[in-house]
């Protein structure tokens, strides 16, 4: 039960309203309706409202149109429906939406005409096959001709349209050979009817058109359902968010959130943006993203993601990403992009495949026609065209992209380009940034050392460190509450990679330099006006799963390189954990430019994994870039892959998903080759009739769907 306490407002709904002569109209998509009782519950809630003039449910109860009087408060109605447990999403009436609905209706009508005509023609054909002769034979043939005309001229329009497009653009698709076969079959049958011959195939043409249309419709419905099931439950609808504005909490539309806002989310409410937890603790239900049924306990500083739900209490979140740049937003964007563009990747193969099928059919036809065996020529070549199926390429590959993207997202991985997953297998070189990637993002600064400084020096040091976003700087943030938020202004701030930072504060020159020491005993030397002031001990522990990651990479025969702005001792301490034969370049005190040139020199087989601002140019240079959470605003849009949780084991998961994608694609292609060679061959030998071919072909399509679903169900 949705227990959200934020409500709709009339302001929020205004862009969705349409004026009518009687008042206003609102279209709604209702998520969660799955039976007649759901519709009944919603109807019952509408009836007492006298401002509703009338309403209409469509699409199985998912679409509700409301017509209301001018004084109607739609926000109250939407809130009442939401209180019943349904998510309500207002819609605008776009042309695309109507077009899709119109297309479905037209397809249904065409299918009905094909079904009725094919059924009646088969009745007459049965009579002919059972021996009807003389005037009845001729009468039934003529009736069949009259009935097949609406099938070919009306029902088969999509096939003619596809054939025309194929010829116009010279990008062959399967509509072309089917269209050619239908046309040829019709004219051959017409000639036979007029000449009193026996080669009449109106029944075959009508039944094949019916089966092709019905199987395409079922397949489209099923595949669309898969896409929608994966994507539409991420749509949050339109709702309010509670943000800190001008000294108090205000409710605004979630689309008006900005990076840096403080967001307050109460129990049962949906988190509206990606961010960082400001509260000490939070219990978050992440089921919508990861599928986990148990809510997770998050600590201060942990990342929180849009679409998740607060399971207990109320939490404050610092907004880091909004809208399309959130983790779920990026996933939906990428998935929608591939739904629209997915065919592009496979059209070359579909085109070649279709050309091969046409050639095989023409050769078969010619072989039998030259021997005077016209019936065999037509039946076999028609059957070959119908049974051929490039389904692995036409929808199998886009589905693999969708499922692999979702599997990655469940494991905290956002992939901008799903095509990189299958390429991972070819890469044998991987470069890691150190701090924040292989080691904890937050460096621990020794408290005693810091508070040993004079209060004024503490504030100056804090001001200098917090002038940049760096793991070492971030380690000073915990002292803010003790020192206070009023920090002096830093002028002439400079960052020297591998050395430290410096700046001018209140007329004094301050500098913080890296002090050589063993790994885990690193120190920072503080300088004031050129004189050493103090030494601060800092430590950055290696991430927990580092050993396991290195072992896995060594097993995969990767060359592991570490590119770091840190000192040589720190880099060597990590390098010692990598066997000699697997060690690549170990670069210390590296500038961003040096990291970039190292990645460049490694050529086309290098994966770069980094997090901070100083990794951006190296990430851009690498053929595959993987970003850890760090300077999110910059890196997420630049990297091919983002590991949103920052766990090193997610690097291993990435490779496992890549293996699965490659394995599934190979199985898919193997099945398609086997199926097409075997079935097209059998059809050519006359073992499969055109009607049987029309029944077998959708079976292969559903087999492809099953292979993809099973292959990418889990890592």
């Amino acid at each position, binding site marked *: 039960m949705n227990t959200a306490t934020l409500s709709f407002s009339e302001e929020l709904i205004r862009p969705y309203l349409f004026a009518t002569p009687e008042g206003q109209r609102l279209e709604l998509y209702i998520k969660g309706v799955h039976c007649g009782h759901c519709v009944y519950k919603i109807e019952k809630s509408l009836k007492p409202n006298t401002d509703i003039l009338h309403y209409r449910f469509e*699409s*199985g109860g998912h*679409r509700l149109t409301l017509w209301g009087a001018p004084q109607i408060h739609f926000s109250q109605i939407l809130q009442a429906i939401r209180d019943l447990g349904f998510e309500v999403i207002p*819609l605008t009436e776009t042309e695309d939406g109507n077009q899709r609905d119109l297309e479905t209706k037209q397809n249904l009508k065409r299918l009905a005409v094909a079904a009725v005509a094919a059924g009646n023609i088969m009745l007459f054909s049965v009579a002919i096959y059972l021996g009807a002769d003389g005037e009845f034979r001729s009468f039934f043939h003529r009736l069949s001709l009259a009935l097949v005309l609406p099938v070919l001229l009306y029902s088969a329009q999509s096939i003619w349209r596809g054939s025309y497009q194929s010829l116009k653009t010279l990008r062959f698709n399967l509509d072309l050979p089917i269209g050619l076969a239908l046309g040829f079959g019709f004219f051959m049958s017409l000639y036979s009817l007029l000449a009193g011959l026996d080669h009449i195939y109106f029944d075959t043409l009508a039944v094949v058109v019916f089966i092709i249309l019905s199987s395409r419709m079922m397949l489209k419905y099923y595949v669309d359902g898969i896409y*929608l099931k994966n994507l539409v439950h991420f749509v949050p609808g339109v709702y309010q968010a509670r943000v800190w504005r001008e000294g108090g909490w205000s409710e605004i539309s979630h689309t008006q959130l900005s990076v840096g806002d403080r967001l307050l989310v109460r129990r049962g409410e949906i988190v509206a943006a990606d961010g960082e937890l400001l509260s000490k603790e939070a219990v978050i239900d992440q089921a919508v993203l990861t599928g986990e049924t148990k809510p997770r306990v998050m600590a201060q500083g942990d990342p929180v993601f849009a679409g998740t739900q607060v399971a207990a209490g109320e939490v404050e979140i610092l907004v880091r990403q909004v809208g399309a740049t959130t983790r779920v937003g990026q996933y939906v964007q990428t998935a929608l992009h591939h739904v629209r563009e997915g065919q592009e990747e496979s059209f070359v193969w579909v085109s070649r495949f279709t050309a091969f099928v046409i050639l095989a059919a023409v050769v078969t036809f010619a072989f039998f026609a030259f021997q005077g065996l016209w019936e065999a020529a037509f039946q076999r070549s028609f059957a070959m065209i119908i049974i051929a199926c490039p389904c692995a390429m036409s929808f199998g590959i886009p589905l693999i992209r969708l499922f692999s993207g979702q599997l990655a997202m469940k494991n905290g991985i956002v992939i901008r380009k799903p095509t990189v997953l299958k390429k991972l297998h070819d890469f044998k070189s991987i470069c890691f940034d150190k701090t924040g990637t292989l080691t904890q993002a937050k460096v621990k600064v020794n408290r005693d050392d810091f508070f040993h400084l004079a209060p004024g020096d503490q504030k100056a040091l804090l001001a200098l460190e917090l002038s940049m976003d760096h793991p070492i700087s971030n380690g000073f943030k915990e002292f803010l509450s003790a020192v206070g938020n009023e920090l002096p202004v830093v002028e002439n701030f400079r960052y020297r990679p591998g050395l430290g930072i410096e700046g001018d504060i209140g007329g004094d020159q301050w500098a913080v330099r890296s002090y050589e020491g063993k790994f885990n005993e690193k120190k920072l030397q503080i300088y004031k006006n050129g004189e050493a002031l103090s030494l601060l001990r800092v430590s950055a522990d290696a991430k927990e799963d580092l050993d396991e990651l290195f072992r896995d990479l060594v097993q995969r025969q990767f060359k592991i390189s570490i590119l770091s702005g840190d000192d040589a001792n720190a880099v060597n301490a990590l390098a010692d954990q990598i066997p000699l034969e697997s060690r690549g370049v170990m670069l210390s005190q590296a500038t961003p430019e040096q990291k970039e040139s190292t990645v460049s020199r490694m050529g086309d087989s290098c994966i770069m994994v980094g997090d901070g601002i100083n990794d951006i140019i190296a990430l851009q240079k690498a053929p595959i870039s993987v970003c850890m959470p760090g300077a999110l605003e910059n890196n997420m849009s630049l990297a091919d892959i983002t590991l949103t949780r920052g766990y090193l084991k997610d690097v291993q998961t990435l490779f496992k998903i890549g293996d699965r994608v490659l394995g599934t694609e190979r199985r898919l292609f193997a099945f398609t080759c086997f199926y097409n060679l075997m079935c097209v061959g059998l059809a050519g030998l006359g073992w499969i009739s055109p009607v049987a071919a029309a029944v077998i072909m959708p079976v292969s399509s559903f087999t492809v769907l099953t292979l993809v679903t099973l292959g990418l169900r889990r890592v």
Partner: protein
Amino acid sequence: MDILYIMVVVSLSLSIGFLVLFFWAVDHHQMSSLDAVAWNALEEAEVVNQDGIQSLDKSKK
């Protein structure tokens, strides 16, 4: 066997009658797409997330 002609006429009349009723049902929203409205919501969410809710005013007919 002349009864066959009558049977054919009856059969075709029933078939045409079914088609007329079916077309009527489709035109009166009895067979609306179950998914079209979900695609609407998905694609509008994409627009709203990128351009903000006010952009919807411009996209309305």
